[in-house]
């Protein structure tokens, strides 16, 4: 019994999932593009953003007078983004060190970093999932025929949509953005032409951290901050970069979208196969078009 609103809700869910995925994937791709570093610890930054909001920020804010919803949905994610930006800055020496190594060593090094983060979460916020969904609950819902849809999710989609446009404009319409693209295409030439690629690299790390933290902060009111979240999203991130192609902005979009769609649709029609299906598609893409559907290393 398929009803229009059910289809619409599924589409909304796909967009919502893709929004969160995008914030993670684009940072991962940015770092790879500019530094040729595969950073397995990137999703830990996403989890960090979620934890900072749910575990610390919201606990602090809870002591205050009831804050307006508008405040709650905007300030915490931005605060998370900035915090994780700082964290990225702190770990950037390790990342630049790793970037000089071969790919396998990069994987191993960043994996070690991921483990450290996971235990840090445990130490700072405990082993029990941290929940803080005031922002989600208070945003309310709107009716769609006989069904309801949370307004918070809509907000996230709009926010991320704005980020997509802002990022695209940054990369394509600003001089700094052009430097990023140039560095990811040919770092030696760009450096030879006089650009300070070290600044570009640091910039990429910081921006990627900002986006990941932002993603975590946006995500957590509708879910929770849990140990193992980094791993959960790392799995998705892998599939996204495979499908979309490493180091590609467009690829981040396409990959996020496809993976979110696959997940939503497989849950609808083949709930038993969910994860397996994702991997099978990833394998298929790897075999047919290893550089991904995003059109290679293009931005």
């Amino acid at each position, binding site marked *: 019994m398929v009803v229009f609103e059910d289809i619409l809700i599924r589409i909304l869910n796909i967009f919502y999932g893709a929004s969160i995925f995008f914030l993670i994937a684009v940072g991962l791709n940015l770092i790879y593009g500019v530094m040729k570093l595969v950073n397995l610890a990137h999703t830990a930054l996403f989890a960090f953003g979620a934890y900072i909001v749910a575990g610390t920020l919201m606990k602090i804010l809870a002591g205050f007078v009831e804050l307006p919803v508008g405040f709650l949905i905007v300030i915490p994610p931005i605060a998370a983004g900035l915090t994780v930006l700082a964290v990225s800055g702190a770990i950037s020496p390790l990342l630049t060190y790793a970037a000089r190594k071969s790919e396998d060593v990069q994987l191993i090094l960043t994996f070690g970093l991921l483990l450290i983060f996971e235990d840090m979460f445990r130490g700072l916020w405990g082993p029990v*999932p941290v929940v803080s969904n005031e922002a989600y609950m208070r945003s309310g819902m709107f009716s769609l025929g006989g*069904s309801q849809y949370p307004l918070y999710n809509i907000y996230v989609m709009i926010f991320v949509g704005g980020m997509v446009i802002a990022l695209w404009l940054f990369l394509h319409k600003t001089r700094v953005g052009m430097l990023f693209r140039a560095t990811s295409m040919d770092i030696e030439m760009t450096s030879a032409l006089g650009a300070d690629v070290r600044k570009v690299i640091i910039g990429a790390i910081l921006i990627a951290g900002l986006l990941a933290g932002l993603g975590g902060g946006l995500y957590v009111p*509708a879910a929770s901050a849990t140990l193992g979240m980094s791993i959960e999203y790392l799995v998705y991130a892998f599939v996204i970069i495979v499908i979309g192609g490493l180091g590609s902005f467009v690829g981040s979009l396409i990959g996020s979208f496809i993976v979110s769609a696959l997940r*939503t649709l497989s849950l609808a029609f083949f709930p038993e196969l969910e994860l397996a299906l994702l991997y099978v598609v990833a394998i298929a893409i790897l075999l047919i078009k290893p550089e991904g559907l995003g059109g290679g290393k293009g931005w």
Partner: protein
Amino acid sequence: MRKWGGILERVSRRQFLKGLIGGLVAGGIIGAGITYVAAPEALRREITGQPSPQPGPFTPVLSRPLKMGIQTFFRGGGAVLGEPIYRGAVLAAEEINEAGGILGRKIEWVARDEGTAEESVREYRKLVEEDKIDFYVGITSSGNTPAIGPVAEELGMITLFADGCTDFLFEQAIKNPKFVFRITNIQSADGIAAAIGAIKYLDLMKKDKIRVAHIHPDYAYGRNAHAHISIVLEKVLGKDRVEFVYEGWPGLFRVTDFSPYITEIMANKPDIVATSLWGGDFVNFYKQALGYGLFSRTKLVTTLSHGAKPQATGPDYPDGNVAGVHANYYFLYPHPETYPINKSFVERYYKRWNEYPNFEAEGAYVCVYLYKNAVELASKLRGGGWPEVDEIIAALEGMTIYGPAGPLHIRARQPNKHQGYKDAIIGISKSDPNYGFSILVDPLVIPISRITVPEGWDGTPDPKAGTLAYSWIRATWKEGVLPI
């Protein structure tokens, strides 16, 4: 065969064999020799398999402290269930020590982590062989009890499982246990109790058609709950009245965003949603479901909504949903004001650990007291002195103990020998401002004998569902009748 630079010698087959055998033999002899010189007693015992000398009937009770091994989840999603096992056991041990110990011996404890089956078995062995515990309390995961059980039998360690309630343990893994016991109710009782709760509280007998959606974590517990909820609904309500409209299987603690599942469930317009999601998964699920208005359209039937940490089910959890506690214990039943044992337990637990006890804590607490009672009884029966392991086991079998949840009985006969049985609880959720979280009210006490396979029943486990209970329900329950 070419060698790099012609430097290295060819190794002939004879040399290779000589090296292999020689190395192994030499190594073994030297090793055994050193061991003999250093600790001849240990070596003799190991070679001959003799146990250490046991105290005879007239040996005075040892005064060295008793060592209790505790093993549970201290990290990860399982910690919300696991840590209370540690806390309940420690509370019991502290209380017993305060009162003078067991036959004058104080209890000390060593705790180790539970993990995957491989890791848990390794840590268990270390508890027994390295830490040299005298008895063991622990385990949350149903994946680990069937792995540790056979090892416990092999090593001859009295092992009291506080959870890990899978039917598989005594039905297939260790059919005739000697050293292994399990205190919390068997897993199948969980799903059965939830289904019975749904039928009673939600008045399902009066409905023409019931649309049921399932969402369970994809592992043995979820499969078990799914199977038993389904078969009870089918048997009691009738196959033609029950329609299963959706099944979701998110990985255990692998999913934080349940929105795709929620929308799928709602798209299928169920009357009830049956779920065994627990801990963090459950909290995520219900909070997100609130945003989609799930609760205004359907009722949730849970096996564990109120069983993890009682205070985790927040005041925003809607009232009127079937609240499960793993068919075991809820801190408000028997009500502390009417039952001193529970009153004392809840108050002391809260004072010690600053939270309310869950069924795991109660289970572990009872494990320790059960051991104490068995030792004391066995000692009395043999005329004094510390009893042998065999005597303790004989005392445990068939024993009944009054714990905070009420009376618990340890079965002495097949099937499910050494399984603990106590009446099951299921209830309805209600937000309570005094406590600040959603509590279980209106508890329905289900006599455990009506929902578990009785002593002497000789059927075989169902091949797909994997339990005796499933076969037993299918074979013996009458259609259309709620057997309580």
